[in-house]
């Protein structure tokens, strides 16, 4: 068989998918490295270097009150008295305007521009660290959301200030234990407008009057929730804003002289009240600064900024309160708050001093960051560095000479800071729509390519060698060309675009060649209808099985369906399973035609098939449908819960046994798990034994006989040990600790040994030579046997294999091999298990891998894995029975092709069991415990735990992907039952040779293998495509960072694992094929001797 072309094609397909995903994700998920350094009082940096401690100086303000009104858009804060009929959100905060116009030296109102993503959590990170947070801050601990970067709250705590917080409980999770006092209120319920605000108001004034605080942070949520619920233009928004007006008013009244008041919105909102994206309506919030004593310089248009970027608040507040600027801040001090000239009498810094400190801190951060990551363009970086060294030498020299620095210097420093921020922003904080579109296009074409490949696999494999050299060469050339072009125009190379260009050009070339192949086929076959046009007609694509994936993809576009994904997928699988018998019945295949001879003339199956066969197949089919449905229903009880699902109770199987309190329940669960494990193991062994694969003495059989049971024993013991509580067996503590370490590691070793044994020696055929060689038919002269489809070896093959096969079958039926029964068929070679030579190692591999993955799960999941195995078996049998039924009635003529329905079921089942093994597409639900199985003391590197957790998370994807080729084999495996019973034993059936048929038609074998894999990749790829679409279209949705972006990450990783392990499964099949070829080669001389 043509193994390599299949493998290369699949590899290329997956590679194109990966490139598409990579390009999209590069434009959507902005990745930034966190710098985990903190500023201290000592390191910053009076210009003279004289006064040592920065924090010791007299700060401009002793205390500050920061009122954060979530989603306080700048439009809400502006006041326009000329408007006679203001909308509900307009002119509701008159206090700001009153202060600004009556006391301009004490208060100012600015538009306050946030950086996308404009969600509350990212914004809090933004205006406390002064950095530009992205969705994935690498170095961030996914398990807890605490901010690890240097930030204002941390600095305040370090210098001994008392920070009191009240309001949105997001802060509490971001800054655990950082507050002197904290009064969090639940922020989860968007419909609740008042709990948080009223809670704050209860405590705000009493706290203000007290003396035990230095910085007071109050985060109001009402305005934001009101926007989400009603939109901005609604009477309740007016009420809410009026309430806020009153709050600001009374806070100003209570304010003392040494206190700064900051009123700010963290982001804006669109006209529908949503936020998250990067439109001006979402980013422009309001910033209001007020001090009871004059603080602002005379209105100086030169220094007055039009818009204040959100990052600028951090250095400003830090310098005003006399603390170091947080390390990773890229903000710029707000100049109007500092004096123009140094004045010794008044505390505080001059504008130039502030700018200098700020610039130095930013430069230090830039140096640290660029030494860690390479995502800032190097050319830009060196420009910035040069600029800073020039400025610093100017500043220092002017200081040394004692003259006042040139007035230009302040402007240049400002320009420097602005350009640093812009550089960082363009690297981190902007969706890249071009990249996103390019990624989408590549993915869409990749999906289309899968579809074309699956429909045309036969033509591609049979008539034309699939030259991948041209696409690969073109891809490489295009990549290099783009790289060179970039080098010429921009001066540096961006790898993403090279990859994108390569992938895209190879896709286009593929389509072009595919067109040519089609037209060529038409030309050659003259009268034949063009495949191209036939392919385009909708009737060739089955509607119902593809409707289900379509619905599934549509469901990925709605957050409610993503939240309920587990049930949605189960629902869809269930629907498709019910569709199978209905479809068969519609075609008149399910019920055997009535025995009435008059009527059945038209519908009568081909001769030689008794009615009982049909009836038996139908019973099998319906039984398997029942089994499948019950596994589907039972699998629902293993689901976890998202936090969005309010009234949901997570499955009790999800908790490890060691956490269970009730002893009786613990034992019950343990027994249940062990029983499931036992059934799992014995089922696997039983199947292998049933098809005669346990007779020989090869590596695979050794694995099935010894390693499989041993592994399950290991697992059972491991669960027992890990479930024992620490104090119950005190004197055995040492032993338990050793066992906790040794048992899982032994299991890993056994697993590795088993898998590699299967790989090395996959043949499970047991050959027994019997009788004299003379009894062989003389028509077997050549000892050399070739696997190709030449004419003369074909004849041998036809002769040899049925004989071997028949004996094997006889051994299956346990009939004693008495040589006298069939004199003409006296055989010299008996082969056990030849009929399942392909599927047996694959099945065993799958089962073994499943057991290994089970090791990484909590104990209760054993039942779920058993269900997975049962569902796989039921699916395979349904597929086999329906194929047989179609074949019996003569309507099935697809060669070995696997139709869409089982493939769709197979790939949806992967998603279904992703949920049924307790996983969810959210980061908090990742089962981190998997990293510590066998490594109870933690790890030194990150690679091993990461791969363990990945294996745990995508267990079902892995199992279904590896087992995918089974869909191709199973109808052949099951064929024997249908036909062998029907035929009398004496009939020499050249076609009844189970999987040996695949060897007889190597071309068909490889084309159907390619088709099956392409279809599987298509279903998964389409899901990835639609979740990518969801992320791209809904990037301003309220739930984008909570639902869609994590879903995208999980879908993408699931696809990655699926394709990798699908390739693995295909490779295993090819390996078996080669081994079988060698086996035949060895057999032939033996037989002819």
């Amino acid at each position, binding site marked *: 068989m043509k193994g390599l072309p299949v493998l290369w094609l699949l590899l290329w397909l997956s590679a194109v998918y990966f490139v598409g995903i990579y390009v999209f994700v590069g434009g959507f998920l902005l990745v930034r490295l966190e710098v985990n350094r903190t500023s201290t009082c000592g390191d910053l940096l009076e210009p003279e270097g004289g006064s040592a401690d920065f924090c010791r100086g007299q700060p401009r303000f002793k205390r500050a009150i920061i009122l954060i009104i979530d989603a306080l858009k700048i439009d809400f804060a502006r006041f326009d008295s000329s408007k006679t009929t203001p909308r509900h959100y307009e002119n509701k905060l008159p206090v700001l305007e009153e202060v600004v116009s009556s006391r301009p030296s004490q208060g100012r109102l600015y538009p306050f521009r946030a950086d996308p993503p404009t969600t509350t959590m990212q914004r809090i990170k933004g205006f406390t660290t002064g950095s530009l947070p992205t969705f994935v801050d690498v170095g961030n601990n996914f398990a807890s959301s605490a901010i690890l970067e240097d930030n204002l709250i941390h600095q305040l705590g370090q210098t001994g200030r008392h920070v009191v917080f009240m309001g949105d409980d997001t802060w509490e999770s971001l800054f655990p234990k950082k507050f002197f006092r904290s009064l969090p209120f639940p922020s989860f319920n968007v419909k609740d407008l008042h709990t948080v605000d009223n809670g704050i108001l209860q405590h705000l004034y009493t706290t203000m009057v007290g003396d035990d605080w230095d910085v007071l942070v109050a985060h109001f949520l009402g305005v934001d929730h009101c926007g989400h619920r009603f939109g901005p233009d609604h009477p309740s928004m007016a009420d809410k804003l009026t309430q806020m007006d009153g709050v600001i008013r009374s806070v100003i009244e209570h304010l003392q002289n040494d206190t700064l008041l900051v009123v700010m919105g963290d982001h804006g909102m669109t006209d529908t009240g949503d936020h998250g994206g990067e439109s001006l309506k979402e980013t422009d919030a309001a910033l209001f600064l007020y001090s009871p004593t004059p603080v602002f310089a005379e209105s100086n248009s030169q220094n007055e900024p039009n818009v204040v970027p959100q990052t600028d608040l951090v250095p400003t507040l830090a310098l005003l309160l006399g603390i170091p600027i947080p390390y990773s801040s890229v903000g710029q001090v707000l100049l109007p708050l500092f004096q123009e000239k140094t004045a010794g009498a008044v505390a505080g810094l001059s504008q130039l001093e502030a700018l200098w400190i700020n610039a130095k801190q930013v430069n230090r951060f830039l140096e640290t960051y660029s030494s860690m990551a390479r995502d800032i363009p190097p050319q830009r970086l060196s420009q910035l560095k040069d600029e800073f060294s020039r400025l610093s030498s100017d500043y220092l020299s002017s200081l040394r000479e004692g003259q006042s620095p040139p007035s230009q210097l302040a402007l240049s420093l400002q320009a420097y800071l602005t350009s640093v921020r812009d550089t960082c922003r363009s690297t981190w904080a902007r969706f890249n729509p071009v990249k996103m579109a390019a990624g989408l296009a590549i993915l869409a074409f990749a999906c289309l390519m899968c579809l074309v490949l699956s429909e045309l696999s036969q033509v591609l494999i049979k008539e034309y060698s699939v030259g991948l050299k041209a696409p690969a060469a073109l891809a490489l050339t295009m990549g290099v060309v783009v790289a060179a072009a970039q080098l010429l125009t921009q001066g540096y190379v961006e790898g993403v675009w090279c990859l994108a260009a390569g992938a895209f050009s190879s896709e286009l070339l593929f389509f072009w060649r595919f067109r040519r192949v089609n037209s060529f086929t038409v030309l050659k076959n003259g009268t034949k209808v063009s495949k191209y046009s036939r392919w385009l007609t909708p009737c060739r694509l089955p509607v119902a099985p593809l409707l289900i994936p379509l619905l599934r993809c549509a469901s990925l576009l709605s957050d*409610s*369906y993503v939240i*309920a994904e587990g049930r949605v997928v189960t*629902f869809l699988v269930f*629907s498709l399973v019910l569709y199978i018998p209905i479809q068969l019945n519609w075609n008149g295949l399910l019920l055997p035609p009535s025995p009435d001879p008059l009527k059945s003339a038209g*519908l009568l199956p081909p001769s030689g098939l008794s009615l009982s066969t049909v009836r038996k197949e139908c019973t099998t089919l319906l039984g398997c449908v029942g089994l499948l449905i019950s596994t589907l*229903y039972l699998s629902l009880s293993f689901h976890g819960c998202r936090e969005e699902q309010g009234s949901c109770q997570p499955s009790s199987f999800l908790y490890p046994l060691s956490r269970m309190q009730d002893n009786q329940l613990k034992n019950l669960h343990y027994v249940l798990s062990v029983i499931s494990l036992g059934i799992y193991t014995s089922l696997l062994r039983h199947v292998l034994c049933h098809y005669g694969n346990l007779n020989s003495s090869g590596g695979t059989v050794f694995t099935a006989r010894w390693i499989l049971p041993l592994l399950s024993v290991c697992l059972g013991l491991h669960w027992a040990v890990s479930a024992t509580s620490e104090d119950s067996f005190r004197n055995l503590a040492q032993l338990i600790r050793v066992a906790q370490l040794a048992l899982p590691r032994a299991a890993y070793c056994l697993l590795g040994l088993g898998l590699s044994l299967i790989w090395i020696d996959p043949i499970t055929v047991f050959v027994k030579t019997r009788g004299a060689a003379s009894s062989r038919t003389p028509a077997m002269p050549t000892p050399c046997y070739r696997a190709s489809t030449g004419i003369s070896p074909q004849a041998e093959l036809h002769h040899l294999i049925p004989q071997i096969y028949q004996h094997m079958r006889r051994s299956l039926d346990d009939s004693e091999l008495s040589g006298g029964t069939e004199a003409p068929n006296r055989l010299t070679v008996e082969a056990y298990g030849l009929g399942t030579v392909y599927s047996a190692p694959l099945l065993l591999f799958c089962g073994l891998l499943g057991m290994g993955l089970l090791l990484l799960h909590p104990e209760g999941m054993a039942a779920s894995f058993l269900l997975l195995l049962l569902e796989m078996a039921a699916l395979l049998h349904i597929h086999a029975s329906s194929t047989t039924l179609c074949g019996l009635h003569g309507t099935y003529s697809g060669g070995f092709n696997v139709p869409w329905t089982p493939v769709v079921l197979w790939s949806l089942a992967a998603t279904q069991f992703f949920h049924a093994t307790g996983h969810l597409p959210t980061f908090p639900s990742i089962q981190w415990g998997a990293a510590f199985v066998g490594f109870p003391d933690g790890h030194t590197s990150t690679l091993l735990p990461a791969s363990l957790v990945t294996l745990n998370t995508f267990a079902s994807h892995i199992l279904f992907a590896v087992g995918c080729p089974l869909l191709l084999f199973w109808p052949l495996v099951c064929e024997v039952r249908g036909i062998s019973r029907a035929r009398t034993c004496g009939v020499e059936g050249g076609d009844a040779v189970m999987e040996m048929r695949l060897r007889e038609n190597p071309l068909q074998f490889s084309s159907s293998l390619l088709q099956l894999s392409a279809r599987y990749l298509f279903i998964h790829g389409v899901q990835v495509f639609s979740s990518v679409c969801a992320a791209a279209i809904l990037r301003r949705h309220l739930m984008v960072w909570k639902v869609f972006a994590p879903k995208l990450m999980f879908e993408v990783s699931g696809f990655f694992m699926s394709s990798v392990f699908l390739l693995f499964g295909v490779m295993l099949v090819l390996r078996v094929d080669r081994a079988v070829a060698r086996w035949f080669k060895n057999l032939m001389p033996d037989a002819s001797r």
Partner: protein
Amino acid sequence: MWDHEIRAMVSTHALIAASMFMATVLPAVFVLSFSVYGTHLLWLYCTSGAVNAVSVVVFWLLGVTPSTKKNTLGYKLSRLFRACLYFFLSCLFFHTVIVLYGAPLIESALETFSLAVLLTSLTTMRCLCVLGPNVQAWIRVFSRHGAMSVWDTCLQITVACTLIGAWVGAFPIPLDWDRPWQVWPVSCSLGATIGYLTGLVAAPTWIHYHRKQLTYKCK
């Protein structure tokens, strides 16, 4: 003959649709605060009852029901008994299927069962009326060459429409819109009803336009 049968079908369907309409409107006269959402179960029973009654009467009058070989009273009674039994079993069957589809097992069992009753009266009742209590015939009807009269084709279409309607009706349930019709089982029963009504319209139309192609083997 064709036109005659199609006309009979159209009038039958008009009668059934009218009865469903009356079942939605009339109870409001007797029951205070009757509404499709508010007192959904009541509406559901009314509709089921109306459809059942009208179908039985109309199909009996039309004489579509296959004639029986034996004409004794005892045989008729046993047929009636079997019909009732099948009706009840079909309710249980639908209940099971709905639960397997993901409906809560215990909490709203009454609602689920009511939906099963509705589905039974919209689908199984028609089977009973057209084919008699004969499961073999029911299964036979739902195959490509299984229809043996216009009424069988009509049965195929209405049943498929009803079931697809109920299936589609489950789609809006997970959405977070908080609408009264998202409450279980309102959307499904509404979907089934709308599907059934569509089927009532679609069946005669389809048959009318395909009457040339339709050929039936005699029974």
